[in-house]
């Protein structure tokens, strides 16, 4: 204890000592400064005195015939102005010290020789300690003389020719060697040189403003060597920066509206003739117009689009999943690109997978998560906050899928949701988002009895808005089957054998429930697209009442099965790859076909012909053959004004529809009742009569 106290005391003493010393130093410094500042106020006499003193000293040392007029220089106008300039320059150098310090390094080699000469000559010449002013001055000299070495040389030669005459004519000194005298002269010259320099700098400062000379002096601090450049440009930080900043700049450049447009000046004709301009289809309020195409030279090349989905949170973002690029075996087979409406040439994000991605979807409950299904049977999960590789994926083992996964969905609520995936061997798995190592539930769909084989290969799957336990699958043989995830009254988990929706003669590639959000419930309407060149409209029986229907109708009592026929049949001229309901207009849907048409239908207006159609403009350097087929279509869910479509050529095309086909303004309740009435009428009259009406 005692020892420790002693230690502390010793330390305290030391501290006090240090403090005292610092104070001493500080006071000395301030004294020096005050001297120099007093010099600033009344420069000429003190300076002249000082000079004279030095000169006399030098003369006494050198000892003879130096012309007095030159050395004192008090009378000549040029010399007279010099002390002022020195001081103003000195003042300047104090202010600019930090800025001048940087170039000092660059020219350090040259600069270092100068103070050395100075110090030696000072020591040899003066017996007495140099005056504080002189000291400050000589110090700043060492720092300041560094810039602009080419021009001083000129002035140096000039001054030499002027001043060197007296020493040359003078006889050699007795006590000092000629070399020392030369050195003396050199010092003098350099002082003058510097004064001139600073005078000029000061003048420039006054005329050009403060920033410019200092900027020129310290920029750049130094040029980087090739290795340094390489190190910097290859660092991860740098890549990251480039990635982020170029996105920002491309968005800035892609911004089409010029905020500085002055409409009072009618200089340029503002082309508002949309009718002729660009790629459009349909007329008037049912117009559809191509807005933009999205294609990335690096990643979209030679790939096909396998699915498109809009972000539920950010209406300007949408994703497209792609199959493999057969010409780039080293690139990842499957990719997902997230596109931004405001960024046309490159994706906002790119995600990779080792196998072709067949479907991908934003999680409706978490805007950062994207789920996908791969040809290898894996279900993958990406996070937009992470890198390109999936943050989670299912293992390639027997517990999950072993066949291609063409459909994934997330169902449930914000707090309790599951990923449901379905592969072409009929396996349906439920996963939790947190754990993809093992499925939470598995089920195999088997075709009901009258089918020749019990294999069922689903190509598409759809859940109704209201019920996460019931879904439809569209199969390869053309039948749409209702399925239950769990056992329920009257039905076992799996395919509901009592009802099937037969009508398509070729694989069903898409099924879609009506997004019921209106005054009339239309949630039981289903749209299906098939490779048999048709789209069909169905009315789906509610899962809970199927048993009641069967019991009451007894229609398929013999076979134990009810076959439901479609309400409406929309026959097209080519294979139809996708069909999607508008999220806001009850009677509107879009379909895409193998001929490259995007068609918009409104069943409240017309059931025989599309109300508008458009074919995305082909890419300039794209193939001419087999490049038009469109594979998928998706609506922007919140406004319902924009559609994205894409297909075999790998480009995503964004279209905007007129106010009668999309958008929330001018939405009428009658449209809902009109759809309902139409459906009721068809049900009452029968399919054939309805389509003939």
């Amino acid at each position: 204890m005692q020892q420790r106290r002693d230690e502390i005391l010793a330390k305290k003493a030391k501290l006090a000592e240090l403090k005292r010393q610092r104070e001493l130093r500080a006071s000395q410094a301030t004294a020096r400064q005050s001297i120099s500042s007093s010099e600033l106020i009344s420069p000429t006499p003190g300076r002249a005195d000082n000079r004279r003193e030095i000169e006399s000293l030098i003369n006494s040392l050198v000892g003879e015939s130096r012309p007095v007029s030159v050395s004192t220089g008090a009378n000549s106008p040029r010399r007279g102005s010099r002390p002022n300039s020195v001081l103003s320059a000195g003042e300047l150098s104090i202010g600019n010290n930090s800025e001048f310090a940087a170039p000092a390094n660059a020219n350090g080699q040259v600069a270092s020789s100068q103070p050395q000469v100075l110090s030696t000559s000072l020591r040899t010449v003066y017996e007495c300690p140099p005056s504080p002013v002189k000291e400050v001055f000589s110090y700043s000299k060492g720092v300041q003389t560094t810039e602009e070495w080419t021009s001083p040389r000129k002035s140096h030669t000039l001054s030499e020719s002027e001043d060197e005459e007296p020493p040359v004519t003078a006889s050699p000194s007795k006590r000092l060697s000629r070399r020392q005298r030369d050195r003396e002269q050199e010092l003098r010259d350099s002082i003058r040189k510097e004064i001139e320099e600073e005078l000029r700098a000061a003048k420039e400062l006054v005329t050009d403003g403060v920033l410019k000379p200092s900027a020129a002096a310290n920029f750049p601090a130094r040029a980087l060597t090739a290795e340094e450049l390489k190190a910097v440009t290859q660092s991860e930080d740098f890549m990251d920066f480039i990635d982020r900043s170029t996105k920002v700049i491309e968005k800035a450049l892609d911004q089409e509206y010029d905020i500085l447009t002055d409409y009072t000046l009618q200089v340029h004709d503002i082309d508002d003739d949309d009718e002729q301009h660009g790629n459009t289809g349909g007329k008037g309020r049912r117009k559809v117009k191509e807005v933009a195409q999205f294609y990335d030279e690096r990643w979209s090349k030679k790939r096909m689009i396998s699915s498109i989905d809009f972000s539920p949170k950010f209406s300007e973002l949408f994703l497209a999943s792609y199959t493999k690029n057969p010409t780039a075996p080293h690139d990842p087979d499957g990719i997902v690109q997230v596109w931004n409406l405001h960024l046309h040439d490159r994706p906002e994000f790119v995600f990779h997978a080792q196998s072709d991605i067949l479907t991908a979807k934003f999680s409706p409950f978490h805007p950062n998560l994207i789920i996908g299904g791969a040809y290898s049977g894996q279900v993958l999960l990406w996070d937009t906050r992470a890198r390109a590789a999936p943050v989670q994926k299912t293992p390639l083992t027997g517990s999950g899928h072993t066949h291609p996964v063409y459909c994934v969905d997330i169902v449930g609520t914000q707090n309790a949701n599951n990923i449901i995936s379905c592969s072409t061997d009929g396996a349906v798995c439920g996963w939790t988002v947190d754990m993809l190592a093992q499925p939470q539930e598995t089920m195999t769909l088997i075709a009901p009895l009258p089918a020749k084989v019990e294999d069922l290969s689903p190509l598409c799957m759809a859940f109704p808005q209201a019920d996460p336990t019931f879904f439809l699958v569209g199969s390869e043989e053309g039948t749409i089957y209702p399925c239950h995830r769990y056992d329920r009254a009257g039905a076992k988990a799996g395919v509901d054998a009592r009802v099937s929706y037969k009508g398509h003669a070729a694989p069903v590639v898409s099924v879609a429930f009506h997004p019921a959000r209106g005054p009339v419930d239309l949630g039981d309407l289903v749209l299906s697209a098939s490779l048999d060149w048709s789209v069909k409209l169905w009315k789906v029986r509610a899962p809970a009442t199927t048993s009641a229907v069967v019991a009451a109708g007894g229609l398929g009592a013999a076979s134990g099965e009810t076959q439901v026929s479609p309400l409406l049949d929309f026959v097209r001229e080519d294979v139809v790859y996708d069909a999607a309901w508008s999220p806001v207009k009850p009677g509107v849907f879009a379909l895409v076909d193998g001929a490259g048409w995007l068609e918009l239908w409104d069943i409240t207006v017309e059931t025989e012909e599309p109300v508008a159609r458009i074919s995305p403009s082909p890419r300039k350097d794209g193939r001419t053959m087999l490049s038009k087929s469109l594979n998928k279509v998706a609506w922007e869910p919140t406004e319902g004004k924009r559609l994205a479509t894409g297909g075999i050529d790998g480009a995503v095309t964004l279209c905007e529809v007129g106010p009668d086909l999309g958008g929330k303004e001018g939405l009428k309740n009658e449209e809902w009742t009109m759809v309902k009435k139409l459906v009721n009428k068809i049900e009452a009259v029968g399919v054939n009569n309805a389509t003939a009406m």
Partner: protein
Amino acid sequence: MSDPVLSAGPDMLEETLGRLSKKPGVRATLILDRASGAILKTSGQISSIRKTKAPASSLPAVGSFSNETSNNSANQDQGAEELASMVWNFVNTAGSLVQELDTEDEVKLLRLRTKKEEFVIVPDAKYLLIVIHDTSA
């Protein structure tokens, strides 16, 4: 699984910048170090940006170039350097303005529109990206 984006580092860098400079109207791009102002990368016609020769460049002492005999590339370099220094000072001044308003704030984007062109500057903690493009196009 290695990340292909990172492994293809230099390629991707070139490609990204190449695409950026190929955009219609883009005249030049410039990447600087934020702290020192050193030029890390340039592309495009930087010398065409500067229509007026500054008085400083006519002085013999600016830069380490032997002034009159400098060939085209040296001229380009010098042009880039001068432009870089001007932009760098501009960004720093803007940065200090923001710092004085709110010390926790920082500059995220600078768009300087002139009658003829626009400078889009993205300042970051370590680097600066500058793109100069025509606005008339």
